[in-house]
């Protein structure tokens, strides 16, 4: 374990060198390969020990120490945390490419376009063409992405949803550390600031990943509970989702079905009749929907769960009666809703 910790520390130091030092000026192909080798090593260390709370703590402590030392010696130092370790090679690459002292010869190696052959250069795996391959991969995706496919959410949202679920499951698996799972979701939400729409799609995709085992069900439940606590987020999500998507989600998760049903009812209760538009509109600020979409969403929920229809009908009827039980449009949103829903 001592050796591992020492290696961790050295690699973090190496990352610092890669980021800011002009020592990289003297690096050659061998050094470069070796650097990536050690970055890979850290990735392995993470995957091996991240589930082991005790060892994780030791490693976090070591990293803290190393970070401290580096922070004191290098101005503008960016810390490397334990959770950064699985992306160590990426971090190395970013730091190197942003370092103006990186020799152009090494950059040329990284961007070599001849098909990289995975040979061992000395003792270390060849990094020739590493960046070229990344660029190509991204380009292939960009070429294919305009094509319509079977997914309602898009390939990227689906993959992001899977990533979310995988991490969530792993965190919940580690025992009673639900706070870490909460922290995780919180940090993702924070990171998606400005891209809330995409975040909602990711949550939808995460909830739609097929339930293959109990771990996944537990993770889904956790996610749903978390979502329900964030009222505005849930509301926003409902305003974004297409009826088909809502139906699929409601089918799989009763909690979500009920929660969205409540959101829809809340919206209905906040609607006012606009004489100029000739229909009910939401006047409150914040995410909302048109009356038409509201009915579509209700219908989607009923599609997902026929029993819900009966319950909602009863409820809406009661509300209509309390509004005077008139059958004239524009007087009671509940009455109009009932007729729009063909009830």
């Amino acid at each position, binding site marked *: 374990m001592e050796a591992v910790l020492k290696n961790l520390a050295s690699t973090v130091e190496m990352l610092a060198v890669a980021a800011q030092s002009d020592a990289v000026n003297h690096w050659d192909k061998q050094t470069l390969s070796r650097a990536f080798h050690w970055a890979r090593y850290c990735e392995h260390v993470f995957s091996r020990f991240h589930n082991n709370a005790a060892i994780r703590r030791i490693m976090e402590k070591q990293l803290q120490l190393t970070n401290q030392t580096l922070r004191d010696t290098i101005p503008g130092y960016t810390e490397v945390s334990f959770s950064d370790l699985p992306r160590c090679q*990426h971090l190395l690459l970013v730091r190197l490419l942003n370092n103006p002292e990186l020799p152009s010869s090494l950059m040329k190696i990284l961007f070599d*376009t001849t098909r990289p052959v995975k040979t061992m250069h000395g003792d270390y795996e060849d990094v020739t063409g590493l960046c070229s391959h990344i*660029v190509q991969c991204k380009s292939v*995706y*960009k*070429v294919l992405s305009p094509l319509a496919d079977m997914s309602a959410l898009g390939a990227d949202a689906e993959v992001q949803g899977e*990533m979310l679920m995988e991490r969530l499951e792993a965190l919940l698996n580690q025992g009673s550390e639900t706070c870490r799972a909460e922290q995780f979701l919180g940090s*993702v939400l924070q990171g998606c600031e400005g891209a809330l729409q995409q975040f909602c799609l990711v949550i939808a995709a995460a909830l739609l990943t097929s339930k293959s085992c109990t771990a996944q069900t537990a993770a889904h439940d956790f996610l749903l509970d978390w979502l329900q606590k964030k009222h505005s987020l849930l509301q926003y999500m409902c305003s974004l989702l297409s009826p088909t998507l809502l139906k699929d989600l409601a089918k799989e998760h009763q909690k979500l079905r009920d929660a969205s049903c409540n959101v829809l009812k809340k919206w209905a209760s906040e609607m006012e009749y606009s004489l100029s538009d000739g229909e009910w509109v939401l006047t409150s600020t914040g995410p909302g929907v048109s009356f038409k979409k509201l009915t579509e969403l209700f219908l989607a929920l009923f599609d997902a769960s026929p029993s819900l229809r009966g319950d909602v009908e009863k409820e809406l009827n009661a509300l209509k009666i309390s509004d005077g039980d008139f059958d004239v449009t524009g007087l009671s949103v509940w009455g109009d809703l009932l007729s729009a829903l063909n009830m």
Partner: protein
Amino acid sequence: MSEQQPLSQPLQTEEPLLNDQEMQFWLDKAVAWGQADSPDTQKDTCLHMSRLRDFLHQLLTQVNSMSSTTETMKRLPFLGQLLGQLCWNPYVTVCDTSRGLLLGCLWGLYSERPSNAVEKKANQWIRKVLCQLSTEEDETAAQALMKCTGVPAKEYHLKVLRKKVALLQENVGQSCTLFNSQRCSCDRIVDISEACIPIVTCPEASSLISLLLQRPVACVTEGLSEDFLNALTSAYSRQGLALEEQALVSLWYHSFSSLEEAVLSLLQSVITTGLTPQKLEQQVAQSLLPKACAQHCSIFLVVNDIFRSILKQAEGNESVKTLVQTFTKCFLRELALLKPQTSISVKAFFPQSPSSLLVPLLTMPSEMPQGAWRNHLNWLSSSLQRLTEEEEEGDGRSTRGHHNVFEAWFLLVQCAHWVQVAVQLLVTSGTEDGDPFLWLLIFYHYPTKRWHHRASQLARAKEAWNHIRTLFSGAAHPLPSDRLQSLGTLVSPQPEQQSFAPSLTVSLLVNVAVFCQLPPSGSAEVLQAVVDQSGLLDEAACVLSSLELRLNEGCCLSRDTVHLRIKELQKTITQMHSE
């Protein structure tokens, strides 16, 4: 930028610069492509790709010939702008070649030791572009998730790509359905195939491409874009593409030009090098063409049409004829493997061949008792003779008769195993009438000669046959030199006249040598003498190999003497080769 007058080069000739108009054209294009992202833009980009590659190549040469970045920027002021635009165009960066050229141009602008502010700035810009290209994330959510879940960028992008490909594959896998009750869903397939044009050589797209190729053709709508098929064909011939067997067969099925190219390349690979019959068969089988022919009748018909047109121009070309025979043999073998599943009659594969001859010729000698060969060949010979007589009796300009004779001859070439049996029977027939067999041999080698020529050929064949028989009868020892000489003269090319079918003579020669009554050494001696005289060593070696192959394969002959003689002859030939 202030103009710096070059100090002392009044006589320096400036190399012809790339046309300014061209640069402007491409810059405008690059900007236009960068702004819009409609299907039309994509089509336009794909259409211009190869021209763009050429232009980038020219640019690269220009840039590399400049002495400094400052000079480059002066002579090609819009270069940076162009490169900057193109770097973000996925259609340019997706292809290895254009990406390489683009990066090459960028590096051309990089100065190892920047001498002024402009060069320093250029360096910074290049580093920034490269860094952004490989590490920048457009999507906030993606970046956040990568950081929080610890998934590295490379892995993420690969995952997303694979997911997209899988989703598209699902799309392709769907059978033809009426979509929106307006157009059937096959339209989407055309779009997908067109989108795949820039990425045909990318390994990540290969499963999608395979699926596109193998999608069963269900409805009238054209499933695959012509440009897509052409792109695949040219990538395959450049060997930039790895297609699995069935995908390749499907490509041939969809694209005539790719099939044609495959056949011609097979021809080239077997004609130029002298291959042993076993190697030839191996090469033909490995080309996958016989398998493809067995699966799709249309492929077999096209391949044969190609063979026909080549043979029409060069009917004497023995190597082509041997290829056709070997090909047909491999094809029939593949067909037999498929037989249980298909119910296509053999006639469908040979629509133009005379139906009465079809089954008799296709039947292999090993499929009938040896005693029946003689009658079978007699019948074949007389049927063919009748056909040729019909042609000759009719109007000389009648194409129908000519066509029939050609088709009969072509079928015979495909089934030349019977020709080989004819030689064998001729040689071993002793006192029985060998004329029908000789006629068959003449016909095989000279299908288009008219009857009087054929008669004279027959006479010359008999003459050669007599010479050979005498030489191997063992009656004369030492070998009569006059006989040898006559045979030699007959066979080797003379300035005034065409040589008499050397292949026919060699066939007779080798068969006699194998089946005669002489002891192995004696037989080898005679063969050596004749080959010395006529110089047909390679041909003799070839015939001997095929004969051995045929005898070993299915035939019933297991006489030790025959095999001993073959071995002795092979030894002699090898010795002669090394001399």
